[in-house]
C-alpha cells in the first residue's frame, strides 16, 4: 500500500550549520538538525564500521581505534510462528581489541508469513542474546520489515532492549526509503537506525535523487549514521558538513588490505 503523502514540511531547506548547537524541531516534523544527538552508548564504537557478512573474512589488518566491525552472527528465519536459526558458519578474524557489533539478520519465509506472538518474540530475543560472545560490544538487528511486520518488530526491539545490558548499544539497519519518506522508527528504543544507501534496488533512483538534492534523512535516529556500499559511492554524504556521523561500509567482495585502505580513505 502506498505510504502517506509526503507533507510539504518535509522538503529540506539547505542545512546551515556553522556552529549551531542544536537544530529546530517543528511540530510538523521539519528538522533542521545540526548534530544529530548521538547516543552515548555508541561511544564505544569508532566512526567507521565495516560490515563483515557471511563469508570468510580476515580483518586483522584494521586499526581497532579507527575501524570497528559489524559482523553477521546469524540469520533467523521466521516461518509462521516458528524460528529457524542459522548461525554464521564462516570464520571472522579480527585483531584482539576490535570493537565488535553482532548483527542478527531476520527474514520471513515467503510461503509462511510471520505469525507474531510473545513466544516468537522471546525466541528471537533469546537467539540474539545467545550470540553475545566475549568481545562483542553491541547488537544490530537487520530486518527489512514489511508494513504488517512493524508492530512485531517494534515489540521485539522493546523486549530486546529490556533484556540487554543497559550500557550495551542497540542498533538497527533501516531501509533508505524509511529514513526519507516514513517516520515509523522514531519511537523505537534503538541508539541508531542506519539508513542503507546501497543495493537499494527499485528505490535507487528515488534515493539517489534525494541525496543528490542534499535532502537529509527525516528521522533523527537515521541521522546518526549512514550505510554505504564500498562499490557504490553516494552523490552526497548526509551529514558531511558535520562529519560526525558514523559510517557503515558494506563490500560485495571479501575485505582485503586494499579495500580496507579505500574505506578508510573515503570514510575514515
Amino acid at each position, binding site marked *: 500500500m502506498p505510504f502517506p503523502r509526503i507533507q510539504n514540511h518535509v522538503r529540506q531547506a539547505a542545512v546551515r550549520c556553522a556552529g549551531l548547537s542544536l537544530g529546530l524541531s517543528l511540530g510538523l516534523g521539519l528538522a533542521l538538525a545540526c548534530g544529530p544527538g548521538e547516543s552515548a552508548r555508541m561511544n564505544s564504537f569508532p566512526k567507521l564500521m565495516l560490515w563483515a557478512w557471511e563469508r570468510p573474512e580476515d580483518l586483522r589488518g584494521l586499526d581497532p581505534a579507527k575501524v570497528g566491525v559489524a559482523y553477521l552472527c546469524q540469520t533467523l528465519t521466521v516461518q509462521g510462528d516458528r524460528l529457524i536459526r*542459522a*548461525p554464521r558458519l564462516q570464520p571472522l578474524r579480527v585483531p584482539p581489541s576490535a570493537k565488535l557489533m553482532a548483527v542478527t539478520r531476520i527474514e520471513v519465509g515467503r510461503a509462511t508469513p510471520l505469525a507474531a506472538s510473545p513466544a516468537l518474540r522471546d525466541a528471537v530475543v533469546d537467539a540474539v542474546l545467545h550470540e553475545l560472545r566475549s568481545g562483542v560490544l553491541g547488537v544490530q538487528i537487520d530486518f527489512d520489515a514489511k508494513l504488517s511486520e512493524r508492530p512485531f518488530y517494534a515489540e521485539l526491539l522493546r523486549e530486546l532492549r529490556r533484556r540487554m545490558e543497559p550500557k550495551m548499544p542497540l542498533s538497527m539497519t533501516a531501509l533508505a526509503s524509511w529514513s526519507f519518506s516514513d517516520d515509523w522508527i522514531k519511537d523505537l528504543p534503538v541508539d541508531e537506525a542506519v539508513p542503507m544507501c546501497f543495493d537499494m534496488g527499485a528505490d535507487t533512483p528515488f534515493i539517489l535523487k534525494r541525496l543528490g538534492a542534499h535532502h537529509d534523512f527525516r528521522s533523527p535516529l537515521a541521522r546518526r549514521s549512514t550505510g554505504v556500499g564500498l562499490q557504490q559511492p553516494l552523490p552526497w554524504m548526509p551529514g558531511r558538513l558535520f562529519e560526525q556521523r558514523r559510517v557503515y561500509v558494506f563490500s560485495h567482495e571479501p575485505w582485503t588490505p586494499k579495500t580496507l585502505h579505500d574505506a578508510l580513505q573515503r570514510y575514515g
Partner: protein
Amino acid sequence: MRRMQRWTLLAAATAMGLMAVREAVACGPYATTALFTDIGTPDTEPKAFAAGQLGIVRPTFSKENLVIAYRHLEGWGLDDEAQVAVATAPEVDNGGPGPEPDRWLKARAAVVGGEAPKLDPFTQLKEFNSYVRIPAGAFTHAVSKVDELSKTHGLKSAEVLEWVRGQDQVFASIAAAPAIPAALKGPDWLRVERQYQIAAALFYAEKFDDARKAFYAISLDKNSPWQPWGAYLQARCWVREATLRPLHGDPADKAPLRSYRQAQTLLEGLLKTVDLPGDLQEAAAAYRDLVRHQTEPGRLRDEALAQLAAPKPGADFRPAMARLLSAEKCLKSALASPSARLDSRAEGLRIWLEVFDVKAITAPGTSLLSEAKRSPAMLVAALDRLPPGHADEKALVALAAKVPAASPAYPSLQWQLLWRELGFLAPAAQKARLESALQRKDLPVWALNRLRNGRRGLAVTLEEWTPFAPSFVVATEVENEVEPALPDKTTGLRPQLFAGVEGTVINQSLTLDQLLVVAKQPGLAKPVAAEVARCAWMRAMVLERMDRVHTLTPLLESALQERASGIENLVDPVERRFEAVRLMMGFPGLRFDIGTDYTTRVNSTDPKEFDSLRDNWWCGPDPEKAKPLEAGPNPGFLKSADLQQALLDRQALAKVPAAQIYFAQAALAFAEAHPDDARVPEALHRVVATTRAPMCGSAEMTALSKRCFNLLHKRYAKSEWTAKTKYYF
C-alpha cells in the same frame, strides 16, 4: 540488507514503468530498470530448450544450459527423465537442521513430558562462527526411534524413558561440557542402543579418537543394529576432525587431507560390502562424494562430465551437474588432483565448456578446424569465439553454410554467419542485409537490438538513424528480480526506449527542428515518437518559439493536443505563458527530456495533480552542482552549427527555475495583469497544490506558494477554489 539475487517469475511489466505496488518492504515506488542486452537465458522456454529448441547458443548461458545445448548440438539429445529433472527447480539446502529439532522435542515430550531441555544443534567456534554439530538426520532418526520403540516396548516403559534420557544427553554433549550417558547392562536392545548413544555423545563432544574406538567396537558387535554403520560412523569422525581444524592453519599441515583419505578408505571399503542396506549404501556413497571433493576434486569433476555425457543421464543429470560445479570450485583451491580418463564424449564436452570459458581463440591452428569438422557443437563454439580475419574463418563459414535448417545448430550458425558475412560487404549491402534480418520474426529481442545497433551505426542522416535509434526492452528488473519484457497486449508493440547514447543524443544534441524530424519519422514506434514530440513541445513553449509550438502541437497525444491547441496564437505573452502553465499543471509528466530508462518518472500522459511516489515535472538548476554544459554527442552526421544551437537551447533551459516556481511566476504575473479573469483562482489553487509534490523544494518555492495562497484568500475570498486551499504548504 538485500538478499542474493534470485531469478523468479513475476507478472510482466507494462509499458513505461507502471507497476502495481505490492505490499511494501520498502515504502516507495518500484522503479523498473530496463535491460537491453542478452540476459544469459535461452531464447526458448526451459522445457523447449531441454527438448532441443536451442535458439542461439551463447557463452552467457549457465553451465547447465551449455551442457544441454552441447548434447543436442552433437545429436545425443536429452532423455525424457533428464528433461524432467532439469525442469525442476533445485532444492536449496542451507545445511542447518531446519525444523527437525522441534520434531524431536515433540516426540520426546510424549515420553518424558515436563519442560523440554534447551537444544542447540550448533557449536560456537573461535572465529565468531559456528558449525552444525547435530545435523537434521540425527533428529529425524531419533524421532523414528521413539516411534519404533514405543510400538515395540510401549511409550511409557522405563526402558524407553531411559533411552530418551540417554538421547537428551547425546544432544546436549558438547566439547566444553561432554555429556556421556552411562553404559547399561540390560536388556540387550537397550544396551546396544546405549553403546551407540555413548559413541554419538563422544562424537558431538569432539572426542574423535574415543568416538572412533566406540564406533569400531560397534562395527564388530553382531548384536547391534548399528553394526553395519560402524565404518560409516568412523569415517564421520575423521571428516569432522578434519573440518574442525582451523581454516587458517599451517598450509603445509597435511593432517586434514590424511583424515579425509582415512574416511575415504573406510567408505570405499564399506561400499564394497555385499548386501549393504539401501539407506546405508546411499548415505555412504553421498558421504564419499563429499570427501572426494577434498581428496580428488579433479577426478570427481571428470566423473561428473562422464555422467553428463552418458547416452541417457536420466535423473542423474541434475546431481551430476551439481557435482561438476562443486568439484570445479574445490579444484581452484586443491593443491593437486588427479583426473579420470575421459572417453571421447566426455572429453568433447569438457573442451566445449572450456572453449566458452576462455577468451576468443587467437592462436591459428588446424586443431580447431578439425574439431569443427567433426563436431557441430565445436563449429558453433569456434564461430562464436573466433576473431574476424582468423586463418580458419573462411573454411568455418563454408562449413556452417552447409548445415541444414533442421539441425539444432542452425539458428546459432545462421546468426554467426550473418555477422561474419557483414564484414565482407560494402556499406550499402550491409544496410540491406541488416534491414532484411530485422524483418525476421524468429529472432529474440536481444538479437534485434544488436541488429539495430549495427544498422544505426551505418546511418548518415538523422532520418536514417532515427528508426533504429530506440532499443527494445529485453527484460525488466525490479528489486533485483529480472523478468522478460513482453509485447503490449493491446497494441502488440514491444516496449522500446531511447537508451544510452541514443537517449543522450535526443536530449542533448538535437535542435527543435531536428526533434521534430525525429517525432515525425514514420519508422518510429508511436509511444516513442509521442514522447519526443512532448519534450520538443515543452522546450519550444518555454523557450517561446511559437512557430515550433504550432508545428509540434498536432504531434501530441489527443488529451494534450486538445488543451494545447491555440496557445501559440495568443497574442499576449503573459496570457500565453499562463495558458501553457495551466496545461502543464495538469500533467506532471511533462518535462524537457525524454526518459532513457523506466526510472520513477510519472507517465507523461496521465493527467493528475501530482504523483507523491514519483518524479513530477522538472527541477531547476542546482547552483552547487552547476558546471558548464557541453555539446551533446554526435552520432556522426550532425553539423556543428546544429550541435551549437542545441547547446544554446539547453543553456537557456538550464536557467528555467523548478516547475512549481515557473508555474507560480506565470500565474502571479497573469493575476496581476488580469485580476478579474475567471481562470485565476483555480490556477492559484493549482499552483499551491503543485508545491506539495515531493521534489525540488526550496525557500523560494515556499514563498511563492504563500504569495499565491495569500492572493487567493485576499482577492478571491468567495471563490470555491479559495475554500479548497486551506494551507500554503
